């Protein structure tokens, strides 16, 4: 085939001049990652980084989950002497912090890093070196806090680290510093990824992918990225203030010198409430993708779903005070936050109703991904509704800081985010790995998880109402909470076991699962238009999009754009709304500097815990690394 096209100058070779396997192979060489350790560490391929991101986030889930299992063993009986207060406080802090900052947010971003470029039909994420950098920073942050925990200097002030408990006076030592710096690490990484996603979605969509053809999953992570951009700076500022108070003696949170303890809570929850939607919105994108594919029907209410995402995003910035109803704020102000919290049921309801309508009009196929989504409905709706109880100022005075809240947020976090996520793993695993997960084990996994979860977490509503506060390492037998706690512990052990089954499925199917092929589910979005796993260039030629579900609309042949270089890393930059092809831009080559810059950043952050001067000399090193990173290398890159 290739003989027909004589390529005079390899540098000029364009993708309309060759085709078939030769095109695939040559592009793979251009976009590929070098073999060997240096190559692996220099890679800028969003799929390789995305895969690492996903695996790392799941490792953190397992660590945090094991911490939870330890807590459940301790709480199973009253007056249990298994774990003392010091360790227990570290355990729930590590559990909550890891789950929120090192698992739930990163895992959603990880899926976005892997999937968004594929779903919008481009060859790499925008700013791929920044992407590599953000992954390494994230790993270093996670390693730091867990190594500290192993050394018995684990953080122990809870995942929202209220001052003054976390301040210099009541948390001497390094524990709270490590917690605060871990926040800085993960926020830097999350913010960087958010900017990458925003730019990828705005500027790198395949020609023809107008705003109303963007897949719902992409919409969800796009809007989530805005939430990150507007919410995370608050916690960065908060953790920086905390570090300053602790290390150089500022008084920002010290009431004795004009500071204020509640300022911390405002700063934290201004971030903290959007945070839970940062976790939840991408999960709704996963639900939309799975429901559409397995209903065999285009999503009902696409526009309504997109608008709900946006509305949820906006509203989420007006709710933070509902975490502070018992701090004695003015009553009228507080009830405003009741109203806004209740209001958010409306966009959430729209989503639920549109999905149910899609299922109703479609022809549901009950494969494992859909099962997890059905589990999501059952659990999440219950959790969302218990959220409305919390949203009521008077009722919250009873249930705040009790196991009722613990039940609520595990219902929404696990039901609303982890169940869709597990569905997403079953759904996209074949794309990422090239083989399907085992369906039979998958069903076992689902039922164990579903039953274990509900048995484990439902009783917590009742223990909470019966007066059990959260974050207590033990309780007296006369309190009457023993049996319910035992039930919770048994249920969560079953839930834990479901993860072991899952792990087994993931590991064994990687070798022996059924080969997937390009599009095992007959889905409609672009990531299924390429091979499984996708080649380094993602697509041999960039698709031209004619429909919201391009692969359902174009079953015979795929319309494509041609004319990109085969020898250079070129991709199409398109216009923001209409996605007209506008520029052929080069995408950066692999580089080791993001890793070195991340190491420099990590050393700076960690050293700053011990001496504030580290910020000064550390910035100099980071600066050098960044300059090397951005300095153009050869002619090749510079030509573009």
């Amino acid at each position: 085939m290739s003989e027909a096209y004589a390529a005079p100058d390899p540098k000029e070779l364009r993708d309309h001049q060759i085709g078939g396997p030769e095109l695939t192979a040559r592009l793979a060489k251009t976009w590929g990652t070098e073999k060997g350790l240096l190559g692996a560490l220099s890679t800028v391929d969003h799929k390789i980084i995305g895969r690492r991101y996903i695996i790392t986030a799941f490792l953190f889930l397992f660590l945090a989950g094991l911490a939870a299992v330890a807590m459940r063993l301790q709480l199973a009986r009253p007056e249990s002497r298994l774990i003392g207060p010091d360790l227990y406080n570290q355990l729930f802090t590590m559990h909550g912090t890891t789950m929120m900052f090192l698992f739930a947010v990163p895992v959603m971003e990880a899926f976005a890093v892997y999937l968004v470029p594929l779903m919008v039909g481009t060859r790499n994420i925008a700013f791929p070196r920044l992407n590599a950098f953000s992954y390494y920073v994230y790993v270093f942050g996670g390693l730091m806090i867990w190594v500290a925990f192993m050394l018995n200097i684990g953080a122990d002030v809870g995942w929202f680290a209220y001052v003054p408990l976390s301040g210099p006076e009541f948390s001497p030592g390094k524990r709270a510093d490590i917690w605060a710096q871990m926040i800085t690490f993960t926020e830097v990484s999350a913010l960087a990824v958010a900017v990458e996603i925003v730019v990828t979605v705005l500027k790198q969509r395949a020609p023809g992918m107008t705003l109303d053809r963007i897949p719902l999953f992409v919409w969800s992570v796009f809007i989530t990225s805005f939430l990150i951009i507007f919410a995370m700076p608050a916690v960065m500022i908060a953790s920086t203030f905390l570090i300053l108070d602790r290390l150089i003696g500022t008084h920002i949170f010290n009431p004795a010198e004009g500071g204020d303890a509640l300022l911390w809570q405002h700063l934290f929850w201004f971030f903290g409430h959007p945070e839970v939607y940062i976790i939840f919105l991408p999960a709704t994108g996963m639900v939309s993708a799975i429901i559409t594919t397995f209903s065999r029907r285009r999503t009902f209410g696409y526009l309504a779903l997109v608008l709900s995402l946006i509305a949820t995003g906006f509203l989420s910035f007006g709710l933070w005070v509902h975490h502070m109803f018992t701090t004695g704020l003015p009553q009228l102000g507080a009830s405003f936050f009741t109203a806004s919290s209740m209001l958010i049921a409306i966009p959430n309801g729209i989503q639920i109703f549109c999905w149910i309508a899609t299922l109703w009009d479609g022809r549901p196929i009950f494969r494992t991904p859909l099962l997890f989504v059905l589990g999501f409905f059952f659990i999440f709706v219950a959790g969302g509704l218990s959220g409305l109880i919390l949203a009521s100022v008077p009722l919250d005075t009873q249930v705040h800081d009790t196991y009722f809240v613990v039940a609520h947020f595990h219902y929404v976090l696990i039901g609303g985010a982890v169940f869709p996520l597990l569905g997403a793993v079953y759904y996209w695993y074949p794309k990422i790995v090239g083989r399907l997960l085992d369906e039979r084990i998958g069903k076992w996994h689902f039922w164990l998880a579903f039953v274990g979860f509900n048995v484990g977490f439902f009783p917590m509503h009742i223990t909470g109402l019966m007066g059990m506060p959260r974050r207590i390492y033990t309780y007296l037998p006369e309190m009457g909470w023993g049996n319910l706690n035992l039930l919770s512990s048994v249920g969560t052990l079953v839930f834990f076991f479901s993860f072991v089954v899952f792990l087994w499925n993931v590991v064994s199917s990687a070798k022996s699962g059924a080969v997937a092929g390009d599009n095992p589910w007959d889905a409609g979005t672009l990531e299924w238009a390429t091979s499984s796993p996708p080649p380094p260039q993602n697509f041999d030629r960039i698709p031209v999009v004619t429909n919201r579900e391009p692969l359902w609309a174009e079953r015979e042949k795929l319309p494509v754009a041609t004319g990109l270089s085969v020898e250079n890393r070129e991709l199409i930059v398109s216009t923001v709304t209409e996605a007209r092809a506008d520029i052929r831009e080069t995408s950066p080559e692999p580089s080791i500097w993001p890793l070195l810059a991340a190491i420099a950043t990590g050393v700076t952050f960690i050293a700053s815990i011990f001496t504030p001067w580290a910020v000064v000399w550390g910035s100099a090193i980071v600066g050098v690394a960044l300059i090397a990173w951005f300095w153009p290398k050869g002619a090749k890159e510079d030509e573009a």
Partner: protein
Amino acid sequence: MRLRIVSIASLVPLAGCKGWQSALDTHGPGATSLEKLFWIFLFILTVVWILTMLGLLVALRARRDAATDPLAVDATRERTMTRTVATLVGLTAVTVLALTGFSYAYQKRLFDRTENVLTIKVTGHQWWWQVDYEDEQPNRTFTTANEIHIPVGEPVRLKLEASDVIHSFWVPSLMGKMDNIPGRQNVIELQADREGVYRGQCAEFCGWQHAHMAMLIVAKPKAEFENWKNQQIASASPPSDDAQKRGEQVFFTSPCVMCHSVRGTSAGGRVGPDLTHVGSRLTLAAGTLQNTRGNLAAWIVDPQRIKPGTNMPLMQINPQDLDLLVSYLEGLK
């Protein structure tokens, strides 16, 4: 801990069985109206949940018609669906509006204030509660710890403060919680409708012994309450027998006085609970131990074993002195 297992159990009957720390077994107007509000919410939300699940079940009903093109959409069905979803969204709006309304109505009632009531300042410390009874006459104010006596059937105002970190005052069977925040003062009112002992527990994570920071509310008829109050206002009763006298000696030659006050004596420490009438309290160390001779001795000998991390240090006291010391403290009724 054998000690503790037997300890508090004996108090349970006092509070009328299971509900001595429960938001679902309430004995004061605040908590009772909250319980009512809770059942209203729960009922409405359960109905919503069941309806949603039924809708889902209907959507998943078995279908026999063959699969068609996923992009082909039937316009009339689409219109029905749009109408249904719009209706449901409307219903959702109405429901949440109603819930907001209920919530607001109850909220106003809950935080109503009465004038001229008994006012008590409750200060959270790591990990115990300091209780100061206020009075117009300065000589009728007094300080105690971890146990708040109130007259039955009367609203009582609590001023909540904290000396170190944030704590939260919560007695679920009487009233919702409110935080004690350093640098601020919060106020709540509560009332007990029935005589009894109600247990509460610190609800805001405050460090190592957050789990053992309980308090008791003892509600009794007005007359009994006044008696109790007069007895608390009085300075410590002087030692009555020899053992107590020698115990007093031990107390005043030990580090105890650096941290504890005994009114009417030279012991004026402010770090730990006021011990003037410690013998009359039901529990020790913030609801952790029942106040018995054995428990008292166990606590003084090794508070760190009973409540690891507590701010009362381990002190070397020989068994003889300990016995005397305990006699003295027991005598502080």
